[in-house]
């Protein structure tokens, strides 16, 4: 069997607080094959963002192992790209120079010209041609998130970590960005982990959805989404999709510690 690109094995972690240790992850297992796209859903505050920091190597778990491409993660690696709910673009840079930021830090061996060409190409891919020289403050929230997405993949990371990137957008903009994500994945294949609160988003974008239990989080349920690859927004309205959403909702309710009957009442 192929070795998964991201392999998280039985990870446990607790934050140290004034009131003693606060366990956030308790037996989390997750593996993503190369080119796979896994969505992670779970109740609020269950440790989803901790998971992203573990994969990025920004923190080391108390117990368990995180493997990336056959190597144990022991610290930050340049082979990771990240995008957050807050697009955190640098206001003093143009959109183009914002997208080029990772290339200034990761040694790619690319010439300045090639770096710029790549950034321009990615911006055109997400529909931001003509906005290269604008400042972030001149763009709408959706456009900023598109630029943030370009920045996260400009250095061709092995792993793309998306921490609720569309969470703050309105419903229509969000659906636009879902389409963009499929387009980007087609042209610039990546292996990704998507943290989200939106169940529709999870089955629309990912090919596997992992439900985490409430804090401390462990892997509670894994749902495979059939027919990976680009899809149409209409697929969200099929009976098959409705069934998947129902399963996920049911699992979330269990994770929240509520009996389903009680929750639906």
């Amino acid at each position, binding site marked *: 069997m192929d070795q998964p690109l991201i392999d998280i094995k039985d990870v446990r972690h607790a934050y140290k607080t004034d009131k003693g240790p606060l366990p956030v992850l308790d037996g989390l297992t997750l593996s993503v094959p190369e080119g796979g796209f896994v969505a992670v859903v779970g109740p609020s505050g269950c440790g989803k963002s901790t998971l992203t920091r573990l994969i990025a190597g*920004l923190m080391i778990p108390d117990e368990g192992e995180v493997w990336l491409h056959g190597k144990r993660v022991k*610290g930050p690696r340049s082979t990771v*790209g990240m995008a*957050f709910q807050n697009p*955190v673009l*640098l206001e003093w840079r143009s959109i183009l120079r914002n997208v080029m930021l990772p290339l200034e*830090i*990761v040694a790619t061996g690319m010439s300045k010209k090639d770096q710029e060409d790549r950034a321009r190409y990615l911006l055109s891919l997400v529909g931001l041609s003509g906005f290269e020289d604008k400042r972030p403050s001149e763009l709408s929230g959706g456009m900023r998130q598109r630029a943030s997405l370009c920045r996260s993949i400009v250095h061709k990371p092995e792993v793309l970590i998306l921490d609720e990137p569309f969470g703050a957008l309105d419903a229509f903009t969000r659906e636009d960005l879902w389409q963009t994500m499929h387009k980007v994945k087609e042209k610039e294949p990546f292996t990704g982990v998507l943290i989200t609160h939106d169940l529709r988003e999870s089955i629309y974008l990912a090919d596997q959805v992992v439900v985490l239990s409430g804090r401390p989080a462990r892997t509670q349920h894994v749902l495979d989404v059939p027919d990976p690859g680009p899809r149409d927004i209409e697929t969200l309205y099929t009976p098959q999709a409705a069934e998947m959403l129902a399963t996920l909702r049911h699992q979330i309710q269990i994770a929240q510690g509520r009996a389903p009957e009680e929750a639906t009442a």
Partner: protein
Amino acid sequence: MNVRSFAIPLIATVIFLLFWELLVWANGWPNYLMASPSDLPAAYERYWNLFLVMGWQTLWRTVVGLLLAVLFGLLLGMVMGFSRTMRDALYPLLVGFNAIPKATVVPIVALLFVGAHDFNTILIAFMISFFPIAVSVSIGLSTLEPEYRDILRSLGASKMTIFWKIALPKTLPEFFGALKVAVTLAFIGTNLMEIVSPHGRGLGALFDSGKTNADYPLMFAVLIALAFLGILLYYIVVALEKIFAGWAERPAG
């Protein structure tokens, strides 16, 4: 620069001078009570050389004091911005130090380093103006959103890279805001020392000699000269801000 942005402040200044002239004339104040704008040209003409020499002394001491304040303020701000422990340790000390009116420190310093005019003056200009810079830089650095740091750290960037690429530029608007306050404060510091220090130099000393001789036109001429220097330095800071932190300005409208 269009005509409007130049004409409006000019007209305002002329109106202000006219009003001042009128006030002195209507009250019939003699010259030894209050000078009027029409007395000033004579005062400038008579002491022009002194104004140039003293004005330069005041200016360079203020600028040196301010530069030291910027350097020290940045350093202190960085230390407090990056380390919580240092912030907790230094903040009360700083606030206490800042609460002491510098006018009370002036005679102490003047006696402590008697005769060292340049050193004394620069020291007071520095002491009075580093506080806002240190506070603004430390606040700017400590309120940096964690995502900024994470994006660069996940790429393996060093602390220095994060500081130069993100933390420093992000703090520049706050820094320049504080610098505008510090410029005026540094001027106050310089002049306090120049006035108090015996056999002092600079515009403050000129003001003091005007006071001794009850030469009101000279005293007011010094005040106007100080205001002029203050405006000059202030707008130099504004120009620097436009160059280095112009991005923070929102388009009008």
